[in-house]
């Protein structure tokens, strides 16, 4: 992201808030639809007013220690939004066939198939669904793959973006994740669509388990860093 985007984003957001104020005009109500609007209004005000949500930066690694990971007694996925640097710990929310949906406590989810992101929900500009290559190809770390990502445009119509990708090995790497080391092979996947180039990274253990990955999600979400904390 160039600095130009950051400059443009701020007045746009303020304009949005101004419009929202005009629209929602606050108020309180026991009516379900109206109280929903009131909640939206409060939420927006919190983001705009000084001393709001921005103040409390979430702790690194979602505040997790190795002891906490062991004590959790459940699989944990640490997700970092690289656009913002925000970390969140996620637990398994649902499983359907080969797809596992992980969720944070505040209802943001990432769905993975073979360690690859096939959907997100609750993020701003979700990946609705995806066509992905077989996990064995990723693990092999060589050859070409094809991907397609489905997102919604401003009118809620589904848009497909197809990518042609090239895999390559980037050598052995030892990762340090929340107080534990993991020996991995680093695999890179460079993907090109008509309009952009994105690069996915996978750190694969000898068993084939993807310990860590950095995957592109959608134009507005950007990249997510995924780290498996146990197993």
């Amino acid at each position: 992201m160039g600095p130009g985007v950051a400059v443009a984003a701020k007045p746009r957001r303020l304009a949005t808030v101004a419009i929202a104020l005009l629209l929602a005009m606050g108020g309180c109500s026991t009516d379900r639809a109206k109280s929903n609007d009131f909640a939206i209004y409060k939420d927006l005000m919190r983001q705009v007013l000084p001393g709001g949500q921005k103040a409390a930066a979430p702790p690194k690694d979602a505040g997790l220690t190795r002891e906490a990971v062991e004590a959790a007694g459940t699989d944990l996925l640490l997700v970092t939004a690289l656009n913002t640097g925000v970390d969140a710990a996620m637990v398994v929310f649902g499983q359907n066939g080969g797809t596992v949906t992980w969720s944070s406590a505040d209802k943001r989810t990432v769905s993975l198939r073979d360690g690859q992101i096939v959907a997100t929900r609750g993020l701003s500009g979700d990946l609705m669904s995806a066509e992905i290559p077989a996990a064995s190809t990723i693990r092999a770390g060589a050859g070409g793959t094809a991907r397609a990502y489905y997102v919604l445009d401003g009118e809620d119509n589904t848009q497909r973006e197809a990518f042609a990708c090239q895999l390559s090995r980037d050598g052995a790497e030892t990762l340090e994740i929340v107080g534990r080391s993991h020996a991995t092979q680093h695999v890179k996947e460079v993907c090109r669509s008509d309009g952009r180039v994105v690069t996915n990274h996978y750190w694969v253990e000898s068993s084939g388990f993807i310990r860590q990955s950095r995957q592109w999600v959608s134009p507005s979400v950007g990249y997510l860093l995924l780290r498996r904390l146990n197993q």
Partner: protein
Amino acid sequence: MAMRRVQAPFWRGTVSVAALAAGLAVAPLGAQDQSPRASLNFNGVTGLIDMPSGESQADAALTTTVSHFAGITRTSLSFQITPKLSGTFRYASTDGLFPTRWDTYFDRSFDLRYQFLDETPMLPAMAVGLQDFIGTGIYSSEYLVATKHLTPDLKVTGGLGWGRLGSYGSFASVGTRPAIDFGRGGNANTAQWFRGPVAAFGGVEWQVTPEVGLKAEYSSDDYTLETRDGVFNRKSPFNFGVEYTPNPAFRLGAYYMYGSEVGFTAQITLDPKTRALPVSAGAPIPVKPRPSRSSDPDAWSPEWITQADAPDLLRKNMQKQLDADGIEVVALAVTSERAQLRIRNHRFDSTAQAVGRTARVMTQFLPASVEVFEIVPMVNGMAVSKVTLRRSDIEALENAPNGAEALRARAVISAAGPEPARLSFNEELYPRFSWGIAPYMRMSIFDPDAPVRADIGLRASASYDLAPGLVLSGAVTKRVVGNLEGSGRVSNSTLPHVRSDTNIYDRQGDPAIERLQLAWYTNLGENTYGRVTAGYLERMFGGVSGEVLWKPVDSPLAVGAELNYVRQRDFGQGLGFQNYDVLTGHLSAYYNFGNGFHGQVDAGRYLAGDWGATLTLDREFDNGWKVGAFATLTNVSAEEFGEGSFDKGIRIEIPVTWATGKPSRTKQSTVLRPLTRDGGARLEVDGRLYETVRDYQESGLDTQWGRVWQ
């Protein structure tokens, strides 16, 4: 008993987890297309400084401009109706024009322009325009104009103008142009179009950097009237300007004009097709797939249906999960293979999203033998459609590539059909009382004494759901601050003052009972809906209103009839009435053209007892935006109607979700009338059937089906 009791282990793990906080929710918007768009001129149309150009705005762009020079202020609202056709409404004030009659002269005008040629490597973009073709005519002019890029950053414009744009340096004449008719305005002045002296105009635009542009033009507007009345001294036909575009939505300009004046503009562009923020709601509960029959035959046993309290238990369990999504279960009917869930959607602007979330909750709770899900959206006690989904499809497509489209191909959207037997009703729905207090703002614009007046106050509202479809509701307002009471204009209307005494209602109605009514809604047949509303229906009228609507689920056409007997309310808006009463009503036809355009015709008797018809045409966007225009012609003559000649206006509807990214069913509607008179005025009744029903039917569901899995 093989019925499986349901658990709710959705948030297992009590790990202290930090939120993916605001940073993720408000991720920076993706790289915007920063290519400079065509700019707008002082009249609010695509152009140079005071002159038009041959280009257009991006399709669907909604732009507003404010420009000022030499005591002339023009405020405009323009809409790129199609990629080629655009319309502009303009409100202009001129200090010192017609000084014997006014200190400041106010004028409203409409433009239409059509770009008939796109720019190619060889040919320029070309447009034809009608300026002020329906107003009083002081801005009236017509033009043909061409614009060509010499380099990506440099473009030249040249054109020919008639009327105002043919008033300086004319070199020829096409017949004679009839004089401006300073009458009431409102009639298309066709006899003037492209008649009279012709003059050439033109200019150059240079985009120096993506943010900064320079402009120079030669104007063919002589400002004859303004010069005559001494508004300003036009010394030169040349204008120069510099414009700054800090972001795609905003542009500012400063200019040196006509050799004597300094001018300014501010331009704002909204793109209805691009959300201010992407939709972001809390993630849905995932689908819970059923175990295979072989691994868990018990789970598939249909015997649970014999358990007497099964429907009640299932309904309550599903309600608990749906609470988080603002979805209310009205009733559940189950057989061992089929379940019909009747729901109310209080939150999602996209009905498909509400349906998708409901379906996923159903997979969590319903026994495995239930294969067919029927989801029936209910609104005001009426069942308005039925979405039938196979559970196996929901399971198979949750994470499939473009699963939304695949699911739509297998879903059936049909009429709700008869109420199924053995419905388990949510007994908490009736009776139910709800209330609210919220600020309100009421505006009066275009009053020549004070172009903008407004009141801000508090509105307390309450509703009491007595039984399915039977609602008692009301609202009371109390002004806190404002100047609407300052309007002392006395209506000169010769018709019954059904709308033109608005300022007296504003002045005397504090506090006011805005509305107090009992409404009853019902399904009259498979595709037919009915409404009866009685009480204080709106600020100015009370009485009885009845409506019938025929709207098949998959039909682009709907037909309705409404009959009202109303009496005019006291100005104080208490419980009293005045002496005027009227029988008013309309036959209405609604048609969804399917290409983003929607038309409506209402023919019948209006509040002043006049007979006629209203034509409304809207451009509708799948995200809920609507931009439209309407006109009403009745048997009231232009003389009787008064200024403006007939009722007309513009309406804009913006969904809260578009601006905030948060799901909400609320929309902000604005109706802009250049003048409010008594002819062609319709009763305002809350909850007319067409808009109530339509969102939940096939067209409404399909437009936002992409969100079914969101």
